[in-house]
């Protein structure tokens, strides 16, 4: 065969590969053929072998291990910190739009309505609190499925473990806990809730705490309304969602004026400290302020919450006509 079958230029990659251990049998054969007839390339092959030996020394040279251990120790500490602070979260699609569910080791930390279905790092709520987000749905998928059932009206309770770490204060935490106990299909006023937690003058603070509710739906702040019956506000500018959630629970929302409101004259009424529920016209009820009551959209909801029909007005015999 001819020594010029492969030119010096063409043989270079094979030559380097052969000298440095990257070549296969075919490259070796080509190089052998070439260098047998080409002294300069033979010397070049030797040079690359020398270089490869020097590189081999670099490979075997120890990197100072003490530093590696220190670095590793720091890293472990930072990871532990991260684990403590971090939550896993995923944005799911729902009938109410994209919704983020985040959980910590303790429980669900945040439910957040998002404007677009981007990743969990679009969460303004978590970012504002400096929470580290680990994008993962495996730990919140069950919650998501239950949420879908809830929004489809197939489930009335979300018995989730809750982590109130995003509540701004102990006061907020108390408000959230009291709100979480509100029964399905019921509404109360902010003033009612303030009294419930033993702070009768803190109505505005209660409203404020719920405005920043990090766990909407599962902490059902949509069941809390103004003393006039007005829906007031929800999740910033999402009043329509509040109405939707209430309607889902069988609470009628009236539109006599501009904004939606709850008309207490069509609601089954349970006065504080009573185990019975009444027609809204029973006895002195129409003259009492709203904060004295829990209002129900239907008898079924009142009874599911553990109340019995009033023996005087007999809502069971004279139901409110639609």
């Amino acid at each position, binding site marked *: 065969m001819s020594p010029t079958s492969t030119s010096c230029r063409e043989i*270079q*990659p094979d030559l*380097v*590969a052969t000298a*440095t251990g*990257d070549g296969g049998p075919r490259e070796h054969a080509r190089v052998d053929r070439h260098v047998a007839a080409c002294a300069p390339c033979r010397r*070049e092959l*030797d*040079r*690359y*072998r*020398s*270089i490869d*030996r*020097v*590189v081999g*020394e*670099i*490979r075997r*040279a120890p*990197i*100072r*291990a003490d*530093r*590696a251990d220190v*670095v*590793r120790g*720091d*890293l*472990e500490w*930072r*990871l532990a910190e*991260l684990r403590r602070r*971090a939550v*896993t979260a995923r944005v799911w699609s729902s009938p109410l739009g994209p919704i983020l569910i985040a959980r910590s080791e303790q429980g669900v930390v945040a439910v957040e309505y998002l404007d677009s279905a981007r990743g969990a790092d679009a969460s303004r709520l978590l970012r504002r609190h400096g929470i*580290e987000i*680990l*994008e*993962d749905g*495996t730990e919140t998928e069950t919650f998501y499925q239950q949420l879908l059932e809830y929004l489809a009206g197939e489930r009335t309770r979300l018995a989730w473990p809750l982590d109130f770490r995003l509540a701004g204060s102990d006061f907020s935490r108390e408000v959230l806990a009291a709100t979480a106990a509100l029964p399905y299909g019921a509404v109360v006023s902010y003033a009612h809730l303030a009294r419930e937690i033993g702070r009768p003058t803190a109505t505005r603070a209660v409203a404020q705490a719920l405005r920043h509710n990090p766990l909407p739906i599962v902490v059902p702040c949509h069941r809390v309304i103004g003393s006039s019956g007005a829906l007031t506000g929800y999740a910033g500018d999402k009043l329509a969602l509040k109405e939707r959630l209430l309607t889902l629970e069988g609470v009628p929302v009236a539109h006599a004026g501009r904004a939606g409101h709850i008309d207490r004259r069509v609601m089954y009424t349970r006065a504080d400290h009573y185990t019975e529920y009444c027609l809204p016209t029973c006895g002195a009820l129409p003259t009492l302020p709203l904060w004295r009551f829990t209002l129900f959209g239907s008898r079924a909801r009142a009874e599911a919450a553990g109340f019995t029909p009033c023996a005087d007005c007999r809502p069971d015999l004279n139901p409110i006509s639609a």
Partner: protein
Amino acid sequence: MGREPFEAVMAAHHAEIYRYLRRITFRSAEAEDLSQETFLRAFRAYRALPPDANVRAWLFTIATNLFRNTLRAAKRRQAAHEQVKRKGREDDGEGPERAALFNEARIAVEAVIEALPPRQRAAFVMRKVHELPYEEIGESLGCSVETARAHVFQAFRKIRGSLDDAQLPPPEKTA
């Protein structure tokens, strides 16, 4: 779920990734920062990693990307960097120790490696120091196997071009 805990990943790969970064950055402080960042990022993304993924190659990818990012950010420090290189290796804080360990050829080769374009350098170190297969190198650099091979070839050519015969140890006789 058959995935090993992240701690096991760290135990298995931290030393090697640190070593890799130490090699391609040539500065211990930078290698420390980058190795920390590599594993913090890996921890965040670990849950989303497919169970059959090659964790080692994946870690090399993260480390390489971080390294390339810092290079972009450090472009403006290039001039200072060049100066340090000309002065030799003393300024990296381990100079005397290394000078004692490394012979002339090694110092010369390391200087060339340090001056290689980042992708060539990363490919070269992954292949020749960590002995990663070319498939994984290509994955780490986001290029084809052929390109990864070409990077290593070019690196050798540059090393060869920068050394004269007097600097090279005599060739070993091969069978």
